[in-house]
């Protein structure tokens, strides 16, 4: 239980950071006035009571994520802070366009490099950028999936710097997770602050699973009314198992594991049911390429389905995301996304990239090695915040280790300035305090493009920390897109 004395908005001080709710000490942003006024009128005991009600609801609803620790898989309650993060609709509309623009260009890029590679021929992107990526899949060369779309589901991480500028920090095009928590966070807020929804115009989120279903149905090889859709999970020990089950339930899809599926002589994919074999049309796969098909990728994979790639290439099953889509997930390729947007769409990028130094370039590498104590260094292919160096928080020994790693394998490292991530008021042990956060909106691309109204706000619960991943002590908040003009 958290102990705190009072929720004192007048004395809440975001210091030098950009605060998502407060423009300056004592001055809430226009879109956030409803929530700050409301919370200001609740006593601290009342606010604590609501936080506890939310935490109890999380246990009762079984909202959890799984972590692996000391040789055991532990089911943890989802960490949630009841104070929402608010973004004005006007600002959001621009971000939404920017995300749609980005995913459109990324998909054109993936399709291009697996086929004609025009972007290389036109010298916009050097070939080594993807040719050496471990997520570039030779098995996908010469193939174009339905609609030319490879990454159907994308989770892009957005951050806001001190001056208020929103940047794309990375694009997750393999198996981005978190959308179920975004939806559950809204459920929780509706339980905890029902009064607020009456007189604030908050954009609804609930449509996501319908949109996901429609998108998946649109890549079915048998365009009929009732495509059979399955969510392929690595199983109960995966950290996102909760989400796999949640999405299957909300879409009325089957939740399957690799062993439930079999590819027949006719190259169709079937699932083993009590009635015998039943054909599957579309698979929303939540396992990595490496484990997808032991016949073509890692032979020791017991999670995948032998023959699945064959079925996909022969057009007998839809796969989302398509195998090989992860090539654009690479942090070196990330640096070229603004160029892709200009090249394929002939538009200027709406949301900027974080400036990125690529260690594979001699000049960049020199700069990075000289400024390790200021920069964030990231491996090109990792996710979940692992294997990173945060310069200003690092020790001399860690910097020496990274210098060695960079020199040994420069292609695998990029560096970015340490952004001063924005904050929002968060309930902590010491009361209301500013905590750093990011935002992961989810983008769907099928026949058309859909962006969630907001996304999953992840917050670093420790003072001063920039690590928002739930596997490393991060929390979350509901995200409100508020139409302040209506």
């Amino acid at each position, binding site marked *: 239980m958290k102990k705190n004395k009072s929720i004192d908005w007048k004395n809440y001080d975001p210091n030098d950071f950009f605060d998502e709710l407060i423009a300056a000490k004592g001055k809430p942003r226009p879109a956030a006035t409803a929530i700050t006024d409301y919370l200001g009128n609740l006593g601290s005991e009342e606010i604590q009571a609501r936080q506890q009600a939310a935490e109890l609801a999380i246990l009762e609803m*079984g909202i959890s994520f799984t972590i692996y620790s000391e040789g055991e898989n532990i089911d943890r309650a989802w960490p949630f802070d009841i104070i929402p993060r608010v973004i004005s609709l006007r600002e959001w509309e621009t971000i939404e366009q920017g995300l749609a623009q980005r995913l459109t260009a990324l998909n054109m890029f993936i399709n291009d490099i697996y086929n004609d590679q025009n972007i290389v021929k036109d010298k916009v992107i050097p070939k080594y950028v993807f040719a050496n990526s471990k997520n570039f899949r030779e098995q996908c060369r010469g193939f174009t999936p339905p609609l030319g779309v490879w990454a159907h589901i994308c989770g892009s991480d957005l951050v806001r710097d001190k001056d208020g500028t929103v940047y794309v920090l990375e694009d997750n095009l393999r198996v981005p997770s978190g959308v179920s928590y975004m939806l559950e966070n809204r459920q929780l807020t509706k339980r905890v602050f029902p009064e607020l929804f009456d007189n604030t115009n908050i954009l609804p989120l609930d449509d996501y699973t319908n949109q996901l279903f429609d998108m998946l149905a649109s890549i079915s090889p048998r365009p009929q009314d009732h495509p059979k859709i399955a969510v392929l999970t690595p199983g109960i020990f995966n950290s996102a198992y909760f989400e796999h089950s*949640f999405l299957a339930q909300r879409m009325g*899809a*089957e*939740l399957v*594991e690799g062993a439930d599926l079999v590819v027949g002589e006719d190259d169709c994919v079937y699932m*083993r049911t009590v009635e015998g074999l039943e054909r599957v049309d579309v698979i929303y796969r939540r396992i990595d390429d490496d484990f997808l098909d032991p016949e073509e990728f890692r032979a020791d994979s017991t999670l995948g389905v032998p023959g699945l790639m064959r079925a996909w290439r022969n057009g007998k099953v839809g796969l989302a995301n398509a195998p090989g889509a992860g090539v654009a997930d690479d942090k070196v390729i990330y640096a070229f996304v603004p160029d892709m947007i200009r090249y394929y769409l002939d538009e200027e990028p709406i949301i900027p990239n974080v400036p990125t130094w690529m260690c594979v370039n001699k000049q960049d590498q020199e700069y990075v090695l000289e400024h390790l104590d200021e920069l964030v260094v990231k491996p090109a292919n990792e996710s979940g915040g692992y294997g990173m160096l945060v310069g200003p928080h690092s020790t001399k020994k860690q910097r020496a280790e990274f210098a060695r790693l960079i020199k040994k394998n420069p292609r695998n490292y990029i560096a970015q300035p340490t952004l001063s991530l924005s904050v929002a008021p968060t309930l902590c042990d010491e009361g209301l305090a500013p905590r750093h956060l990011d935002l992961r909106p989810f983008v769907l691309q099928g026949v058309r493009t859909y962006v969630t109204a907001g996304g999953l706000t992840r917050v670093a619960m420790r003072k001063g920390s920039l690590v928002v991943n739930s596997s490393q002590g991060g929390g979350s908040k509901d995200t409100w897109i508020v139409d302040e003009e209506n």
Partner: protein
Amino acid sequence: MLSRVAERLYWMARYLERAENNARMIMAFNSLALDMPRETQLSWKGLVAVTGMGALFDQHHQKADERNCVKFLVADGYNSSSIASCIKAARENVRTTRDQVPTDAWEVINELYRYILEHVDQGVGKRARYEFLNEIVGRCQMLNGLLAGCMSHDAGYDFIRVGRNLERADMATRQIEVGALQFLDGWDGTETYGGLLWTSVLRYQSAFQMYRHNVRRKVSGPLVIRFLLQNEPFPRSVLHSLSEVAGALGRLPRNEIPLRTALQAVRHTREGDVDALIRKEDVILFLEKLQLEIGELHDDIAETWFPVYETA
């Protein structure tokens, strides 16, 4: 429906039923133990024998006293049939089929699991044992009600029905068997306390009141055995439970082999001539044959519908 899902729903129902049965049985025996004079020395070990876990118990305990036995049946994690283990396993099965069962049902089993984590000591101790066990029974009933009332009665529900009733029939035959072993003859207290002892066997299945309604004679061993085996309308009798299994199997696809086995078990239960089973040995022999048939039925079900696991 996926074979794997069918298997998990089936086991969820079996584990739930097992937990509920254990709770009912301990409550009934507990009440009997309080009634009996101190020198009669009721054996709690009999309850352990009912669950078929006697050997495991002996590995862990030297003394089969009340505390050890109750702890074994209620709380011990190494006993896969303890109430705590059953609820944990049932929850795991629901967790992996959450897309199939109503959300409310998941929340009930999840809360039941959390309740046990917090209160299991009450079930072991004497003072609040009744409240604890009663709570378990109540929540299991609530879950069954939710499934019956809110889940489509399709193949998935039939697998639940099969699991629940097969477990119930299995448990009832074991309870009758252990009752027969302990109380049918050769025990000094039979004359004086026979009525009480057989009443408690009825109470294991919450059958005492219904027995009174149906059998207007005194409580005696053979009459109780007949009631628990063959009373068709009573929902916890072996005959009723096996008929329910057969009914559910009849609605499932590709059911020839398991259905044949089930109907055979129903026939053997119905036709068993309890009056001819005069000697204790005959009763035990009859019940053990029935248990073998129930085991066979499970194997047939698994072979027909459940996934085949390749052994590594």
